[in-house]
């Protein structure tokens, strides 16, 4: 019975996507970090090709890849690479996700503007998030208990932080977890002893970005590889793309598309 319902739903979905392919329509789903890029590119692409209709939605990297596996989207946006489990699930459904690296992002540690700390080493960052360093005076700041702010454990930003800064060790449970980049900016700006991390595009003057190993988080230092906390962003397709999907991906990777990437606050790949 369960299988029957599933196959009916599956048939419905394929019917919907099949019809959408014929009408020159594209569906993009996934990561909220990639969303601003996808939005800018979709607008420009539709302006150039008025007969194409692009539908965009967020929902997170996991949802983007799931949409490719379910066939409910032509392109799945993701701020992380596909996971082993997802590859297995895709293969079991005869789907071969193909990644396209479309942009880079750099994740900057941020503190309250009143903080005296302006540089932290990777080791210090790790120990702060492990809960081994708990006072600002241990890393050159004023006396005060560090308020550790992290992203939700399922966000793409958190995964990059965990891999590159934490080396897969666990962030202390006491850390505040906040569901979005924007909310981290809010929380850090209002909390004098806070430390958090956000994507480069979210830096504002209400918060202070900290140098890591004496390297400034910037577009230049991301591209030349000297800033240590960076990540690529992806668009996934089912198999090597064809037709409208292919030309859209080609557009994103063109000079024009990459200019839109930097307009959206991310770092173009060339």
């Amino acid at each position, binding site marked *: 019975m369960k299988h029957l319902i599933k196959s009916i739903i599956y048939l419905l979905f394929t019917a919907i996507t099949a019809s959408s392919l014929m009408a020159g329509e594209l569906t993009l789903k996934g990561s909220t970090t990639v969303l601003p890029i996808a939005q800018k590119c979709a607008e420009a692409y539709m302006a150039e090709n008025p007969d194409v209709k692009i539908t965009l939605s967020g929902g997170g990297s996991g949802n983007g890849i799931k949409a490719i596996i*379910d066939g409910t989207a032509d392109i799945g946006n993701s701020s992380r690479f596909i996971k082993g*489990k997802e590859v297995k*699930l895709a293969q079991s459904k005869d789907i071969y996700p193909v990644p396209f690296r479309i942009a880079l992002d750099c994740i900057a540690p941020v503190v309250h503007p009143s903080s005296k700390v302006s540089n932290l080493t990777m080791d210090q960052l790790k120990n702060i998030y492990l809960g081994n360093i708990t006072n600002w005076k241990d890393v050159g700041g004023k006396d005060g208990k560090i308020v550790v702010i992290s992203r939700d454990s*399922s966000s793409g930003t958190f995964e990059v932080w965990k891999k590159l800064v934490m080396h897969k060790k666990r962030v202390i449970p006491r850390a*505040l977890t906040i569901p979005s980049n924007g*909310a981290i900016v809010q929380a850090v700006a209002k909390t004098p002893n806070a430390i958090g991390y956000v994507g480069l595009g979210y830096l504002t003057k209400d918060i202070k970005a900290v140098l890591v190993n004496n390297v400034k988080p910037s577009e230049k230092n991301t591209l030349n590889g000297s800033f240590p906390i960076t990540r690529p962003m992806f668009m996934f397709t089912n198999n090597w793309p064809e037709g409208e999907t292919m030309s859209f991906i080609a557009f994103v990777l063109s000079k024009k598309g990459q200019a839109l990437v930097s307009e959206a606050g991310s770092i173009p790949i060339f």
Partner: protein
Amino acid sequence: MSQFNTEKGVQSIFLLIALMSITLLFLIMVFLFLEGLPIFHHVSVKEFIFGQYWYPTDDDPAFGVFPLVIGSFTVAAFAAVLAVPLGIMTAIYIAEIADRRIAEIVKPIVELMASMPSVVIGFFGMVVVSPFLQQTFNIPVGLNLFNAGLMLAFMAIPTICSISEDAIFSVPSAIKEGSYALGATHLETIIKITIPASLSGISTGVILGLSRAIGETMVVLMVAGGAAIIPESLFDPVRPMPSTIAAEMGEAPYHSEHYYALFAVGITLFAFTFLFNLAADYISYKYKQAGEGYS
């Protein structure tokens, strides 16, 4: 004859509609269990309920919902401590003490509070209350249990107040007049006669208000701080169940352990709100006679 047919037709249409909504709700519940139960292939029920750590995305993941359950409960309990007395006393004021003209102004205002979108309350808590708490109590962070409980109390008061007020208002005046006739003062009548007589309605209001608080998502997601720990003080951050589901579902890979675990958290939450509503039903049934026996 045709009148009879029309009536029958209308009856079956309504039956169909009623059945449809019940079936839909039931199917949602079935789906919840189908998607949640597979997690118990990966962890035991005991580990899931009493586990102290919630690290769902690690390579060696930990799915302990105990801190999340405690988070939900402490926030709801704190909200109850604030909202129950305030809600009931406001209800008593409106129904028994206030001037009719004042009551006519106050009542709609309280009920209007219920229509405040939860995201607005959450934003208020994040931007206004949080810095205020930080400065007033000199605490490191304003997104915590206290803040979340305060915001949830705001949301529960209108429900508690308006249901209690209806119950108090509908206490037959003959009972109250009897009390006055025996020489009781206004205050004595309220405490010893009116409140016990309307206890059924008041309890229903309290439980409905609190089950709204325990299931509320947006507010706790924004102001509770989101640390999956067992709080040691009122100013510790907590991570209630609904906000965990809301924050993590978008990124959980489809049909992964994490995905199942989040649905299992949903089952836990469902069990609690279900028990709450069951209790509300039971209490309102048990004390039913008290208010109406006389009229």
